[in-house]
């Protein structure tokens, strides 16, 4: 993953609440077996409306999106993060994010920045004509108008973003610890090992009541 230390540029001043993953990328775009190319489908239903924000030349290609509460709610589809990344969005600023979306965002080099609603309201105004900077080093969002909003990020996730680390690789380095856990768990809870295969299922009339 490419390291991210700052995201600076224009921002889509959207502010909408409960933006769900079906809005970010409708289901029919999920039929791909690739990660790339989903930017075309991003916000398709919003873009179908004349005069929409995403097709406004003032904001075209903005690396930042400003939204309302509960951004990315709904499905677990990482396609939402892929679509945002593909359209060039590197940071989303909102008062809150769905848990699954914020995890997906981090893993794709998108910074989910949590700021309180008053800061969002101010940024929505500032974004009309000023660039916004999200700085991971100082953990602040600043504008050309001298606004300065500090935010917090999980330290581990911040490090992964700033150093472009591969989480799977990091975890694989803990292989011995995982094997030790497995050894102990197979003694304590042997049934979890599972009966392999869903073999020989009879569905006679009476079993399920």
């Amino acid at each position, binding site marked *: 993953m490419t390291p991210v230390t700052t995201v600076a540029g224009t921002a889509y001043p959207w502010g909408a609440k409960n933006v769900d993953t079906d809005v970010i990328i409708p289901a029919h775009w999920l*039929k791909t077996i690739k990660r790339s190319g989903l930017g075309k489908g991003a916000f398709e239903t919003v873009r179908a409306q004349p005069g929409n924000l995403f097709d406004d030349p003032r904001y075209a290609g903005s690396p930042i999106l400003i939204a309302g509460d509960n951004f990315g709610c709904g499905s677990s589809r990482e396609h939402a993060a892929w679509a945002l990344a593909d359209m060039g969005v590197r940071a989303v600023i909102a008062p809150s994010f769905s848990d699954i979306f914020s995890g997906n965002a981090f893993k794709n080099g998108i910074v989910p920045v949590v700021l309180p609603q008053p800061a969002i309201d101010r940024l929505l105004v500032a974004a009309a004509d000023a660039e916004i900077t999200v700085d991971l080093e100082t953990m602040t969002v600043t504008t050309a108008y001298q606004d300065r909003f500090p935010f917090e990020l999980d330290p581990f996730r911040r490090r992964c973003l700033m150093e472009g680390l591969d989480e799977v690789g990091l975890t694989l380095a803990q292989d011995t610890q995982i094997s030790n856990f497995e050894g102990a768990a197979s003694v304590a809870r042997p049934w979890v090992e599972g009966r392999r295969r869903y073999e020989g299922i009879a569905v006679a009339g009476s079993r399920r009541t």
Partner: protein
Amino acid sequence: MARPLTLYEKIWNAHVVDRRDDGTCLLYIDRHLVHEVTSPQAFEALRAAGRRVRRPELTLAVPDHNLPTTPRLDADGRLLPIADAESAAQLDALRANTAAFGIDYIDATAAEQGIVHVVGPELGFTLPGTTLVCGDSHTSAHGALGALAFGIGTSEVEHVLATQTLLLKQSRTMEIRVDGTLGFGVSPKDVILAIIGRIGAAGGTGYVVEYTGEVIRAMSVEGRLTIANMSIEGGARAGLVAPDETTFAYLKNRPMAPAGADWDRAVAWWRTLPTDAGAAYDRSVVIDAADIAPSLTWGTSPEDVVPITGTVPDPDGFADPAKRVAARKSLDYMGLAPGTRMQDVSVEHVFIGSCTNGRIEDLRAAASVVGGRRVADGVRAMVVPGSGLVKRQAEAEGLDRVFTGAGFEWREPGCSMCLAMNPDKVPPGERCASTSNRNFVGRQGPGARTHLVSPAMAAAAAVTGRLSDVRDLMGAES
């Protein structure tokens, strides 16, 4: 004495491989379900990095989202091709990837095929006290059996395949207690709709919910699955129900459940899992069952809930300005005017199915309302069993004939009209009473208008042609 613990803390603690100073844990994952939509990129990444699947035997794959719900074999038993090339490619990728990595795969033509969240519990793959994940947000459903189950993104699917673990921080805990007994005609779907209406679509964000109280204790596992399934619609990544005798009776003799001495040991451990007396939740919500009526949604967020006896709300009535704007947009999309009685709204489509309400009890509830009635003119109604096993069971009970005799379509298992990824869609501007879990803009097809309802309410809408109070139809029979 040790500090009293919640069910969630007990399962969490039993799965911690490593705990870091900042509280992040490497958590062991016991069970992984895989479907065709969110896995291809994970397998692709494994291949690109030359990685293997650590514990293929703990993973089970089944296609569901893309699969058309029309017959899969021709009269001679040959596999029928899938018309949509992209869907076919995704389904082929699942078959090829699972074969290459040694993962059990339930083929589209197997009797056990179905929606991943119906399949897991009914095969006994889902077990109390396990950690279970799937690249799908409704994985929360499996919490009904006392599994810590949650949806993950594709990068996490890759992480679990490669390491059988996930990096996570512990969530806060929320108890949602439903006291009392449910009224006449009130179903588990109404309970969860009422809960989401109360806490809001983001109310559970950052929490793992545990459902407690008399109503939950008295409920079947299938009803609990409906409730836990929609935890995510209230923002909670996982929803739990403590395992009890109902859970054990449900699981016993399921094909992948433990057997013999293993079963006894498992049950003994499962009995230790329920939340200790005196354990603290970070937040508690108490709901009185007497306040829950048959309910449905009016807007495009699952929090937009009203009782069927209610009316479309006036956006100006919401205190929150953002909600006022959202409600106006929702009503515009839904083609509804404030003040309209919900029961005066007619529907063109009825969908009974999905991982929320595609199990046998759901089909029984719907069939009992259909009785000898007929689907109203101008309504297209379909029943899509959640799995092949549900379908067979329903056919053994003659439910299919109740439905087809009334004019419903009776289809092959899959996600179907729950989401617009396969041929079952609601056309633009048309209205659907749906037993699924999401009423988002475009969820059932571009421009589709969705009202989330229980199976019985969906059946009532089908036979009357409008959103209806199922109690009126049930009352007429008794």
